[in-house]
């Protein structure tokens, strides 16, 4: 152990973790939490609480081994019941037909595609945190990447549901893939909807590989702990402990923390990050092509690809914060890993991406006028003043205005404010997709085509069910899998520096 970092000391003492009445005064009496001290010379610690490597292992593995606490089972049961709406609603839809939704001849895409884009967007933050922040060497990512990656996968699962069922005849969905068949026909590779199939399935697969690869060392840690307990306990070993040891052992693939393995592992991780970064961009770009390749006013605009990507990151980070801030309160010791500095950083990303999205909104408006296309301009006027103005202004206030509070330091350092803004952004991003999809279709070229969309209970309950599915999967993840990348967290702790103990500078 090296000497205690002053920030850690201050923060630990303030949190009551270090009982040390004789300790020096907190370094920054204003901000309190040592991670928020802004001094260009030093870097704030990424792990608080004067932790050793062993205590990181104990805490993180403890979440899996001891379970999350009493709140978990009721929460899980409720969300699992909500999730059960999905099979009910989808079953009803398949038996009856897509007429059970509120779609009509004018508005033939509505909540189904809105939900698809909403969920796939949320699924972007995980890979962003793992891949892009990894390439940018942002060390603070290590304590949020695992749960964000998990979120990615669960969100993509929710997203994948909707395109599958919106085609009407679900049993023909296999024709989306290029499978040789008796009819002698092939999918149409010039269709954006087919690109979606490839993009979303690739994204799901690669995210899952990335997630799994990151967990291999942590599975090995859990395996070794289970094995050690079995060795040390003596006497009969309960079946659950044995099951855990075998399950984690199987998943760990025999990882034994060898440096020669680590070398290739880090290389492979970097390469996965390298391909995942353009993959993230491509997936939401391709989703945006669904709209932008058309000639429908409000859909066809060239900024759609980067605008959708920025929006996805925006919405995804909001969801990460929305889940992590409560988890931080519920799990003991988690505040040492997800410090206020982590929250502040994410709040800043919300602010930046929120402004990017705002930039895209205004650019669309400007070019709608500048392009001098009557239809385009009318669609945008209608968005702001027409029958869907309420949705449009909900979107603007949630996505553009609400993140502006993060210009104020106190707001981006307050978990409550961040939580509220992330909730607003999540709502706003759903409305963004709704506005793009429905308001453009609702006022297409001819007044005879104009109309409104009204969701049916089936629409609403399917979406609610998808939220339940997402939450259920996330709760299972919190219960059974390592929520933090232990080896990565240990690597950004001061003790991990091989030059620690003798000053090289």
């Amino acid at each position, binding site marked *: 152990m*090296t*000497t*205690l*970092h*002053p920030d850690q000391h201050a923060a630990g003492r303030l949190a009551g973790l270090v009982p040390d009445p004789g300790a020096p005064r907190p*370094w920054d009496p204003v901000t309190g939490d040592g991670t928020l*001290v*802004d*001094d*260009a*010379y*030093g*870097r704030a610690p990424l792990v608080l609480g004067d932790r050793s490597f062993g205590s990181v292992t104990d805490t993180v593995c403890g979440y899996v081994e001891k379970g999350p606490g009493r709140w978990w089972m009721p929460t899980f049961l409720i969300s699992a019941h909500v999730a059960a709406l999905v099979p009910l609603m989808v079953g009803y839809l398949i038996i009856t037909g897509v007429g059970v939704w509120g779609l009509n001849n004018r508005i033939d895409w509505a909540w189904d595609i809105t939900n698809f884009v909403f969920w796939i967007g949320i699924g972007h933050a995980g890979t962003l945190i793992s891949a892009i922040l990894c*390439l*940018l*060497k942002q060390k603070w990512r290590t304590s949020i990447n695992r749960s964000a990656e998990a979120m990615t996968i669960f969100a993509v699962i929710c997203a994948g549901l909707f395109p599958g069922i919106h085609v009407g005849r679900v049993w023909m969905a296999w024709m989306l893939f290029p499978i040789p068949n008796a009819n002698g026909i092939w999918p149409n590779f010039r269709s954006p909807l087919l690109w979606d199939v490839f993009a979303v399935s690739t994204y799901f697969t690669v995210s899952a590989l990335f997630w799994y690869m990151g967990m291999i060392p942590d599975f090995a840690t859990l395996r070794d702990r289970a094995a050690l307990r079995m060795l040390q306990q003596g006497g009969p070993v309960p079946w659950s402990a044995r099951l855990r040891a075998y399950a984690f052992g199987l998943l760990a693939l025999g990882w034994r923390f060898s440096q020669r393995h680590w070398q290739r592992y*880090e*290389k492979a*991780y*970097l390469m996965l990050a390298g391909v995942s*970064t*353009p993959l993230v*961009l*491509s997936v939401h*770009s391709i989703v945006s*092509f669904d709209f*932008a*390749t*058309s*000639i429908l006013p409000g859909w*066809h*605009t*060239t*900024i*759609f*690809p*980067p605008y959708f990507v920025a929006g996805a990151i925006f919405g995804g980070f909001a969801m990460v914060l929305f889940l992590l801030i409560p988890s931080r309160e519920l799990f003991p010791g988690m505040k040492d890993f997800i410090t206020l500095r982590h929250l502040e950083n994410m709040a800043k990303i919300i602010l930046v991406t929120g*402004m990017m999205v705002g*930039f*895209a909104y205004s*650019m*669309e408006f400007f*070019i709608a006028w*500048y*392009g*001098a*296309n009557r239809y385009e301009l009318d669609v945008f006027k209608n968005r702001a003043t027409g029958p869907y103005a309420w949705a449009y202004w909900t979107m603007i206030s949630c996505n553009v205005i609400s993140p502006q509070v993060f210009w104020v330091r106190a707001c981006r350092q307050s978990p409550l404010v961040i939580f509220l803004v992330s909730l607003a952004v999540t709502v706003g991003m759903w409305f963004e997709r709704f506005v793009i999809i429905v308001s453009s279709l609702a006022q297409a070229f001819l007044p005879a085509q104009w109309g409104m969309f009204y969701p049916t209970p089936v629409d609403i309950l399917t979406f609610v069910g998808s939220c339940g599915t997402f939450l259920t999967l996330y709760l299972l993840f919190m219960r059974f899998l390592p929520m933090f990348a232990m080896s990565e967290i240990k690597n950004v702790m*001061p003790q991990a520096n091989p030059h620690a103990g003798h*000053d*090289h*500078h």
Partner: protein
Amino acid sequence: MSQAVASNRYDPFAPNPAWTKIKPADASFPGAAGLSTGLIGLGVACIAVVAAVALGMVKLSGSESGLKYALFSYHVGFAVALGMSLGSLGVVMILNAFAAGWSTTLRRQFENAAAMLPVVLALFLPVLAAALLAPGKMFKWMDAAAVAGEPLAEHKAPYLNINFWILRAAIFFAIWLFLSWRMVGLSRAQDESGDRRITSRLRAMSCWGLPLFALSLTFAGFDWFKGLDYKWFSTMFGVYYFAGNTLLALALIIVTLALLRRAGRLQGLVTEDHFHDLGKLLFSFTVFWAYVAFSQYFLIWYANIPEETAWYQHRMQGGWQVLGALMIVGHFIGPFLILLFRAVKRSPTLLALVAVWQFLMCSADLFYVIRPMAYPDSSGLEHVWLDVLGWLGPVLVLLGFFARRVASNPLVPLKDPRLHEAMAHKNYV
């Protein structure tokens, strides 16, 4: 190190031990000044030849096509010079906003390039003069008679009119000059005082400066380059322009640093690991540029709406399609494959060669945007030498002043609080 943090926390002037490790010989290169006069002289000569040819042709033959030709050639050079400087300003602000430590020793060169914005303003004067004295030669909409009765021009007149255009140019330059003056000036002031609060101020300023920068850059791109064809529009254009500018800035700085290293400077300050990361940045902006350029082209190609497609249609015939193909192969696929190799990114010489190539490709990209507008009806590449001179002139002038600035300033921020991070920077994977 933790002890040092403890004792220094509230003393903004406390010295960083890394400061004393910089040898004066490594951090200065007065020799670059010699280059400066030559480059400026050559650049001015190029511009003079272009101007003389243009005016001479008007005088001798009464034909104004030479003037038009010269103006467009010069505009490409101006665009490249602006891109290098403006792109560098963006990089400086991004590095400051991110509180980047690894790049501390590189930042000064980006600052030097950003400090060239007054030169760019001077280079803008011919464009302004052309707009005032020969309206409509470059920007057709400026000639009221030529576009009279054109519905598109009339619709856009509230935005595309000469007074507002000049006002906007003034606003853009005001924003850029202010930002570069503060970003560069404060950083230089820190060289003297070592006040680490300056780093925090720079960071705060970058945070509010970047939105202004993004908007001004986008609309400058609209005004000066997209506006050459007032009929065409693309919401993506600002992003496309940003990507190209950043690539230009990276290319310039990579070459500068490689040359300084060749001259025996920056030992221990800018290492292979820095080149590795600059190479990664060059790689990622190459990919980002390709992504944006392809998306813009692709969406317009796919939707096939006449008023958008015309812009690309013009560039897909009459010889311009060769340039289009070069953009795909030479600006993206080639550098992409080469920069995949770690050895290339870690070698200053090889990376500088790729950077020179990308610099040429970025110039060609701006040429592709600007030059075809000179002759909307044909390819008109009859005086290539004039294009080369028009491109070289502004670029050489800017490089000359840049060399002078490199020579007259410390090569790295001498008293940056994060200097130790940059000096210890290593890519382990």
